[in-house]
């Protein structure tokens, strides 16, 4: 009972850290990676995968978990490690199907948790290149402020420290200007705007 409480408390702390973002989320990701890498590697290796695929699935699953937690799609109905395993199983199953490989054995492994949705990161090829061009027009400092704050959840104080600004107001103003500029750039490219809002 005590053991279960401890494990639940650890999971709650990890979840809170991921939600908080920034350095706390990074520390949580390190812990989750180390705790689950072997098990997910084994899942892939036992189902027609090799070491490279195991690594790949682990990393994609971690990214999906991170994005789902931060977007509020993970409701805490299971342990984080169970959820991560569920994502990995689903991703590997999809990959086997795409390669028209045998999936029966993997499908027999009962999914302990339902994965509501995976983030759509299928933007590849020209669209991805167009986004990269767009962001590079924005400049390195702008990119960093926006990505650190919006994707990684660093607060303005941390961003000011990371970017050598003297206080958080500088970072806040910079973010405001950069976001405005990014929106202007997107507005000038209706096709890209359409693509980005479809994902």
């Amino acid at each position, binding site marked *: 009972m005590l053991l279960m409480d401890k494990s639940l408390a650890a999971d709650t702390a990890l979840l809170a850290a991921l939600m908080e973002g920034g350095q706390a989320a990074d520390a949580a990701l390190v812990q989750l990676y180390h705790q689950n890498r072997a098990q997910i590697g084994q899942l892939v290796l036992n189902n027609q995968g090799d070491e490279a695929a195991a690594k790949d699935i682990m*990393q994609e699953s971690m990214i999906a978990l991170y994005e789902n937690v931060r977007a509020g799609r993970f409701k805490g109905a299971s342990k984080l490690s169970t959820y991560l395993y569920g994502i990995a199983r689903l991703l590997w199953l999809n990959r086997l199907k795409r390669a028209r490989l045998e999936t029966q054995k993997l499908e027999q492994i009962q999914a302990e948790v339902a994965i509501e949705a995976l983030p759509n990161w299928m933007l590849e090829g020209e669209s991805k290149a167009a986004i990269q061009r767009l962001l590079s027009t924005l400049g390195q400092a702008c990119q960093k402020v926006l990505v650190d704050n919006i994707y990684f959840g660093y607060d303005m104080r941390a961003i000011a420290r990371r970017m050598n600004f*003297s206080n958080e107001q500088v970072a806040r103003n910079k973010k405001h200007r950069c976001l405005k500029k990014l929106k202007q750039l997107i507005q000038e490219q209706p096709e890209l*705007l359409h693509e980005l809002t479809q994902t």
Partner: protein
Amino acid sequence: MPVNEEEDRLEEAAKAAISTEGRQQLRLRMEQLEKDWQKSQSPTRPVALWRRPQAWLLAAAVVLFVILGWRQLISLEQPQDLFAQYFEPYRSPTITRGEAVNQEDWQSAVGAYQAADYARAITGFQAAKLREDSLGYLLDFYLANSYLAQTPPQTDLAIEALTTVLNGDHLYREQARWLLALAHLAAEGTIESSQLLNQIVEDKSYQWEAAAELLVALKE
């Protein structure tokens, strides 16, 4: 489409674009974690705490944190802050240089500039400038951008290069005036900067709206 709906759509698109870049960076972080995990799989002998490089790094980080925290406490809004908010290196040159120009130095400098390796860009642009007899203003302009992108910005060199561009009769004069105003800000020359910003606003030239914002901020 109503204004609010359009704004929401742009916000959503901007976040999707940022997530694409963030995901890429997170993937790199995962690669690091994989390496650490791989290392942890090979058994190693325990090392005394004081002999671990991490312990020294941690100690250094604590000292740095204390120093930076103190700096943060005593600092107020400075002209350099405004510089940091408004400065972005000008977009990379896309034009192909003529045959008279030393292509190798130019291309290497542009490549470095695109990769945000401004120290290497400076070396390349300087080398190209040594052999250059025309279009020197272009080299001065990108040199100035590279000087300003350094940490801390090399303001004296940037001001010198931008003044040369501004005094010439060619392209990039408007851009140079804006950057010169920022360079003076970074050098705490608020009077020189304000004069240039006023000219920009009066002429409604390159970045005049940002110049107007800056003037307000400087008066506060």
